[in-house]
């Protein structure tokens, strides 16, 4: 890693999900804010260990689903009730026939919700993002295999190259490495 490049942060590797979780608890209690852990799979209880709350992804999905429902209502009702009344089997077009419109309302609600879920997930996770400083760390490729990593960013106000390194080593971090941008 070239020396003139900006420091992104300090990374440490841990033995297991359990060791990483205990380390995360200690980092949380030390008052860091710009840090993250990287694991091959979602670790149960890690949100709490990191001091993160529940994901608010469901909020945009609710809006997306409501939009889908309203779209279906307009799509079906406007042509059927006013623009182009299609009389089939002499059945009336009024509020009593609403159940016959339900399947499409349901399908569009689900369709819009699913799209909102995936796009909100990408936006909230800032994906796609094909370049990230952590990829500069050679050991980091094991994150999708069996590696457990903790990275503290240099822009964290409590970050200090020497003190943070000592802290990471103290809580059991191995291969503590300076990651460059």
């Amino acid at each position: 890693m070239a020396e003139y490049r900006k420091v992104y942060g300090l990374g440490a590797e841990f033995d297991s999900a359990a060791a990483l979780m205990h380390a995360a608890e200690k980092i949380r209690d030390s008052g860091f804010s710009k840090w993250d852990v990287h694991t091959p799979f979602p670790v149960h209880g890690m949100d709490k260990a990191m001091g993160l709350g529940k994901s608010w992804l469901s909020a945009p999905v609710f809006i997306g689903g409501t939009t889908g429902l309203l779209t279906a209502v307009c799509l079906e009702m406007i042509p059927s009730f006013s623009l182009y009344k299609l009389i089939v089997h002499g059945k009336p077009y009024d509020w009593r026939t609403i159940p016959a419109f339900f399947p499409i309302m349901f399908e569009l609600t689900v369709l819009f919700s699913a799209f909102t879920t995936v796009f909100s997930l990408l936006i909230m996770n800032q994906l796609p993002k094909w370049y990230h400083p952590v990829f500069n760390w050679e050991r980091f490729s094991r994150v999708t295999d069996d590696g457990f990593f903790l990275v503290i960013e240099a822009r964290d106000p409590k970050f200090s190259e020497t003190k943070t390194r000592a802290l990471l080593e103290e809580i059991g971090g191995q291969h503590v490495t300076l990651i460059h941008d």
Partner: protein
Amino acid sequence: MSEAVATLETPKEVQRIPLVTNERSLHWITENVASIVEARTPLWWWLAFFPCALLAMVGLCCIGYQISNGVGVWGENKTVGWAWDITNFVFWIGIGHAGTLISAILFLSRQKWRTSINRAAEAMTLFAVICAGIFPGIHVGRVWMAWYLAPIPDSYDIWPNFRSPLLWDVFAVSTYFTVSVLFWYTGLIPDLASLRDRAKSRVRKFAYGVFALGWRGSNRQWRHYEMAYLLLAGLSTPLVLSVHSVVSFDFATSILPGWHTTIFPPYFVAGAIFGGFAMVLTIMLPARLLYPQLDDMVTRQHVDKMAKIILLTGSIVGYAYLMELYIAYYGQNKFEMFTFFHQRASLGFNEGGWYNKYYYAMMFCNVISPQIFWSKWARNNYIVVFITSMFVNAGMWYERFVIIATSLAQDFLPSSWHHYHPSWIEIWTFCGTFGIFLSLFLLFMRFLPMICAFEVKAVTPHADPHHYRPTANSGGPATGALGPHDAPAKEGHH
């Protein structure tokens, strides 16, 4: 350490069979899932792919011939206007249901054994829905007018009838396919990242890298990812139940005897799951044979559980068949009675209905054959499971054919009764969809991780941060990452 001790002392009776056998390590899972994709294309793959692709080409040629000549090249007639095409449509769309059931309903009900089979089952869903979509698409005759199905205000000001089950079907099937693709791709992202990180060649690095979207497994990402997965599962659960219900409305809202029944939606959904699991086993058992390393992930326990689901849903389907017969008798409507007791469940071949032999074939395949799964021996014998799955696959096709053909061929007016025989174009189109399905599945096995590795890792004991800490804080070798059965040679992979 008290928690660890408590785990070790869990009484034998309440201990569960591990989902990944032989205490495999996390790295072992990555290695064995990814190596399938990374290894040189095996000879058997070409030997399997070539005939499948050829069959798919035959099917596509038949479709081309049908489009250029019109639906007259099929064996349908004015009386039997729906036959093999809609039978095949319902057959394929039903198969898709098992994938969504495994990925959504079993996820919500916390059935952790789903993790090793959900990826392949979801892929199967997509390919089955592609095959299903072909049939109504070409059955409309003038495929270039198919856009009339969409509610687009064109210059003639013609809108589709929003109260028609056929239009509901358009929405249901297209939504189902789209949501299944989204769900499948979302599940693939972490595993694509795994392939990206292991890739050696530039092409692989680029291709997997692009589709992995720069995933880096951070917990701030996993937090939203898990919520997204939960939401997609929650959305897919009613969706999968609705799709086959809507398909059944195509029949149930008509006034034809044999179709006009309220039992259809639950009966169709149970049948779809039943047939879908049979197809999952049909493709997973050979895959397991070809890749013995999957044995520790797709274990005997998985096959056993799938066989139990087949037994359960097969019995629900059997109940529905018997209930239909009883209601036909109880209702004393002579047209219903004629459909059920003359065309379907009549005794004597050639004397009763024209298609009663298919009714009995359906009864045997769907109701009687899965009953063998009451025996643990049968559930654990892969040959028995495979043969029974084949019976179920055939039986579910017969079921749809029986429903469609018997009700249409001999309807209210005897002067319009008409036999139906498929033409060779129809037969080869159907065979061609098997070619398309299997070719797509073989391509999937070759290029994408067939097992959802990150979910399998998450159900191993190493993944549990609360109860598994043999070497926590000891600074020893990474026990969480290396299991006792790992060959040391494999360790040097990185």
